[in-house]
């Protein structure tokens, strides 16, 4: 008779290894339409002074959510692309950004009240560059790092996919859900 315990252990090991199940990658997608999701609370807490939070408006064809890593002082998530490659765009929320060497350009309609800077780093053999969005209390940068041979026009797709969410929206959501204050910009002062 086969031992089910041993088979189950082997199966779990195989599944875990083959699916590369690990403590990195994956995560909750910060969709602009799901402002009640816990990922926005965590993003807002990572940079409490930031009045805007990055989010994904919609995924263009071939794009998907790669993963996130949010900690105090830095909220990061990244998108993968079937043409641009894994980790094609990384979005980071920080207290401030170093825009040295970047050129200011007009913000897109959903980037109102921000200052936008771009710094293309290289075009060949692969496109790399950074787009900075500066606003009151924080900064968001989109770092493009496309696979070799991928068109730089993919950056336009990525910029269209990404958007901003006012922190005030999350503050209100949290207050409605718990009656508590999400410490930081747009919220009453917190204890301690």
């Amino acid at each position, binding site marked *: *008779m086969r*031992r089910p315990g041993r088979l189950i252990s*082997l199966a779990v*090991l*195989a599944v*875990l*290894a*083959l699916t*590369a*199940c*690990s*403590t*990195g990658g*994956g*995560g*909750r997608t910060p969709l602009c339409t799901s402002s009640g*999701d*816990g*990922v926005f*609370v*965590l993003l*807002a*807490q990572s940079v409490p002074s930031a009045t805007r939070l990055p989010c994904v408006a919609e995924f263009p064809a071939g794009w998907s959510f790669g993963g996130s*890593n*949010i*900690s*105090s*002082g830095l909220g990061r998530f990244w998108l993968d692309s079937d043409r641009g490659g894994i980790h094609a765009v990384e979005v980071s929320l920080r207290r401030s950004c170093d825009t040295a060497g970047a050129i200011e350009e007009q913000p897109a309609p959903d980037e109102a009240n921000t200052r936008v800077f771009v710094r293309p780093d290289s075009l060949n053999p692969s496109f790399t560059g950074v787009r900075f969005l500066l606003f009151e209390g924080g900064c968001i940068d989109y770092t493009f790092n496309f696979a070799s041979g991928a068109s730089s026009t993919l950056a336009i797709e990525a910029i269209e996919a990404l958007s901003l969410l006012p922190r005030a929206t999350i503050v209100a959501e*949290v207050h409605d*859900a*718990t*009656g*508590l*204050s*999400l*410490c930081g910009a747009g919220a009453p002062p*917190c*204890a*301690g």
Partner: protein
Amino acid sequence: MTMDATRPAGNPAQIDHPRIPARVPPRRRPSGEPPPLPHHLGRTGKFWLIMVAYFVITAIGVLTFPTFLRFFERWDTERLRWLVSIRTPWLTKMALAVNVLTTSWVIRLLRWGTFAALIAFRRWRHLFVFIGAIIVLELLTYQLGLGIGRGRPLGVTILTSWTGYSTPSQPVASLAITLIGMAYTLVVPGKHRYQAKWAIGIILVAVCFSRMYLAVDQPTAATFGAILGVAVGLTAFRWFTPNDVFPVTYRRGKSAHLDVGGARGEAIVRAAKDQLGLDVVAIKPVGLEGSGGSTPLRMTVATSDDEPDRYVFAKLYAKNHVRADRWYKLGRTILYGALEDETPFGTVRRFVEYEDYTLRLMYDEGLPAPKPYGIVEITPEREYMIVMEFFDDAVEIGDAEVSDHVIDEGLDLVRRMWDIGLAHRDVKPANLMVQNDELRLIDVFFVQVRPSPWRQAVDLANMMMVLALRTDAPRVYEHALQYFTPDEIGEAFAATRGVASPTQLRSLMKQHGVDLVAEFRDLAPPHPPIRIQRWSVRRVVLTLWVLLMAFLAVSLIISNWNAFA
């Protein structure tokens, strides 16, 4: 070849096996009555598992019903606000200092230190269980954190850095499983481990308090993390490295030996009385050095008022012995192919049933093996004991005077096994006893019926080498010619090399500094070497399977490397 007329064949009637009468009638265990040694996870283990279940159910409730979330957030915030109200600069410094214990470099230092110690002590099973438990916990906390998706505390100012979702608290869980792992792999069970557990409890309470004080974790998140870390660690170590089967000890000895004191000792006495009617008054482990596959015991049995107490010999088998046998056979199959029957046993019951069968077979054939008294069930499907005759005043052949009579008996024993169609497969000094100038054969677990000619030849060579260790090769060879033809002896030493001889025999020959194989080969007629490598589809598939499993295990560790480095 007809040698029966000339050789001094043994006579079954010559062996005087003592009779151990059942002092009390056996008693059938009624339905529903627990076995002599019930298997249980332990009260604390159950407690921690219940706590984990409670938290998981609560988490599901929070995710399903928003009212729950509101309740928990408010409850947590009230506690944190109270802690914030007692904040002072020195208390904050102290909390930050305690919180250093949860930093990744401290946890990695503790983990790698433990790994190094386990490698140094060659405690491989504990090492693998520890690594496995860490991976499972890291995946569990990560996935639970994502699933619950709870942010950091609300309504209070956070005083230190953090990473990721709050519930369960990953740093607290990591520290908890690391400390539990250290206690269960490095600290000897008993008073010291008890003290270690208290120390862990105090450390975790201090760490949870400091993280709540710093408002980096909610009370429920920190508690959940601590409970999860402890529960995963406890369950893993209690399940896969139970103290009584894999004891943490700094004494020399083999880990296969079970502790026969305490609850197990009482269970053995009760079980022997109920199942065999034997009134055991003392249990003493014996011959541990020569036995790695079981726990050998000498038990003193009360007979009747006008007779002195008698000894019986018993071998205690547990699941780890079955696993060890399975790994041993797997290793042999990969290294050498199927030299002989390498089919592993499925259960401890089958294991002990087979030894009982071989004992009875040897006994029925009149070979000088112990008389079997029966099997005793200690814990169903987990632990069994086989009871047999104890050879009073017998000494291991390595320490005995080996006379011409003993040499003849050893050679005759092999001849008779050849004639019957048996092979002992573990002929070594630890399994040959001399009792009043009579040779006795013990440990018949490896006996095989209708073995390969190769294995029979190896039995002969091993027997001749054991006998020559206490005498000399020419003398043994001269005696052997009475039982075997020169060609058979030549074949035996052509078949014997390396793995064919038991480890104890090989190491004794090394100690004595004699190359007995070469000496016997010089004495016997030349025989072409018999190859011991056997190639088959099964061997190739097994090797590939083991490599695949090793690759998957390494992949899992690499994909979770951030938990270790």
